[in-house]
């Protein structure tokens, strides 16, 4: 069980020895696996096995009732070449990600900067701006959103644009704005990051004659870049998986005219409404690969703009 340890008594009756014995570096592993057992079981049965199965199913035709029928690359070919609704969902999702994520992060950073130097009321604002991040994920708020952006809703009355919810060009924007509205979560992380920046850096920059804007570019942005990167990766990954607001605003079907048919909504439609589990599995794998690729690209580009203080000057 243990490697040779000169300090260990020869016999197993260690308890009898009054001197506390020094533990060998690698102790008994049994207890560790007991602690880990729920996680290991979950990782095997609910993560790894399902991943393998969904990869297999993606090459089959499967309706949940009849045994899966091997069709090779058929699902993928159909997806990429014969299914306009699939491409519709891809374009919709990408549009949504490109609108929602930058807007949300810009707002989060802006408000965090405004709150940073505030002496009074910071805690209050921080909590109040954060509240939508918890409430906004609910069906309740998604329904409110649909009503506000509907014909005769508040936005219509204010801007006279008619109901966005019924306009193919605008419905997706309403969905995106619901995400942007939840900027409190990244804002709180930005704020925590801003507070880590040592004040001396700003003082030094001010001594060197740097104005507010220059200080922002030369001190805040580089020092904050790891947090910015973290928020960017997290929000992007989550944006690719948006579902509830699109479901509510698109009346459960991604309407009007498929303009809010985001990827996961179409996946749900193919798998659980139309019972094409094989096709939905193929969609899930493409999503997995795309999210992996986007994350990898973000990590790769991050080398040129994310600055880690521990690396020293570069």
């Amino acid at each position: 069980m243990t490697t040779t340890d000169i300090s260990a008594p020869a016999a197993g009756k260690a308890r009898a020895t009054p001197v506390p014995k020094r533990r060998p570096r690698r102790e008994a592993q049994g207890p560790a696996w007991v602690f880990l057992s729920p996680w290991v079981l979950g990782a095997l049965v609910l993560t790894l096995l399902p991943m393998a199965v969904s990869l297999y199913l993606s090459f089959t035709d499967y309706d949940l009732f009849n045994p899966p029928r091997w069709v090779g690359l058929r699902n993928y070919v159909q997806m990429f070449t014969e299914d306009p609704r699939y491409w519709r969902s891809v374009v919709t999702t990408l549009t949504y990600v490109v609108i929602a994520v930058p807007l949300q992060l810009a707002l989060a950073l802006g408000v965090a900067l405004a709150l940073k130097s505030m002496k009074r009321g910071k805690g209050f604002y921080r909590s109040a701006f954060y509240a939508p991040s918890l409430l906004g994920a609910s069906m309740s708020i998604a329904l409110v959103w649909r009503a506000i952006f509907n014909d005769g809703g508040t936005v219509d009355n204010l801007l006279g644009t008619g109901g966005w919810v019924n306009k193919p060009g605008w419905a997706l924007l309403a969905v995106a704005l619901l995400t942007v509205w939840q900027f409190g979560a990244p804002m709180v992380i930005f704020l925590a990051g801003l507070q880590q920046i040592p004040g001396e850096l700003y003082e030094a920059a001010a001594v060197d004659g740097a104005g507010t804007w220059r200080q922002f570019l030369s001190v805040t942005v580089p020092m904050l870049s790891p947090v910015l990167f973290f928020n960017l990766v997290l929000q992007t990954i989550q944006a690719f998986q948006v579902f509830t607001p699109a479901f509510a605003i698109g009346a459960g079907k991604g309407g009007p005219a498929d303009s809010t048919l985001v990827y996961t909504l179409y996946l749900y439609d193919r798998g659980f409404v139309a019972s094409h589990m094989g096709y939905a599995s193929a969609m899930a794998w493409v999503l997995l690969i795309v999210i992996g690729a986007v994350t990898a690209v973000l990590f790769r580009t991050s080398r040129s703009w994310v600055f880690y203080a521990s690396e020293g000057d570069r």
Partner: protein
Amino acid sequence: MTTTTTPGVRKPVARGRIALHVGCLAALLVMLYPLAWLLATSLKPAEEVIASLNLLPSHLEWSNYKTALDGVNDVSIWRLLSNSLLIAGGAVLGNVISCSLAAYAFARLRFRFRGPLFAFMIATIMLPHHAVLIPQYIIFNQLGLVNTYWPLVLPKFLATEAFFVFLIVQFMRGLPRELEEAARIDGCGPFRSFFKIVLPLTRPALITTAIFTFIWTWNDFFTQLIYLFDPDKFTLTLALRSFVDASSTSAFGPMFALSVIALLPIVLFFLAFQRLLVEGMASSGLKG
């Protein structure tokens, strides 16, 4: 901001600060408008819901809440509420137990393949749920567990939410090792030292886990949508779903009354734990 050089004028700083507060309050008003709208609409008489441009109702229409309390699709609201509570409560229990167990092993114990397994655990945080969703559904379907609460609760007992494992690992790593070492010298095994020493000290992280699990499970829509189809088993969130396709405005008042009721536990949690929530969020990077 501090380097205003206008001679003899000290005002700009104060003025800038006031402008900042005015700006923040204005932004806050816009942001909180949907919540005010929800509350007001839930109390509006039917004819004012769409026709009137006023935010405030002419009189408070409590009957909306009466109708909402009658429930949806012949299922009483108490049923929906207790279903939601059961699922969220089970998820909280499961996550707190299983994630703290796994976290302790990762943070404090040595075992073979710890490095690679830890890396794998972190990677699953980024794994889109959809990649495992369909086979999980098939497994639960084969076990005859679709349309029960097991698919919603059981995974939480198997530490599948790696977010929380990671959160607790980070917290445990910050605890002084000396405590356990002293206990070990006194003959404390890893189990006793986990329950008696580490777990009590980890309470802040466990509470954060519990609160976020509750709120996320309560709000969750997708999983409930695919696993539950018997109206008797519906949660509040799923009951609200039946309003998604309906476009009639007659049920607007009761629908938003139900929405308010469905949001109430989250609002209460938020008011009670806001400091903890916001700080837990900042330190862990969890999304609300």
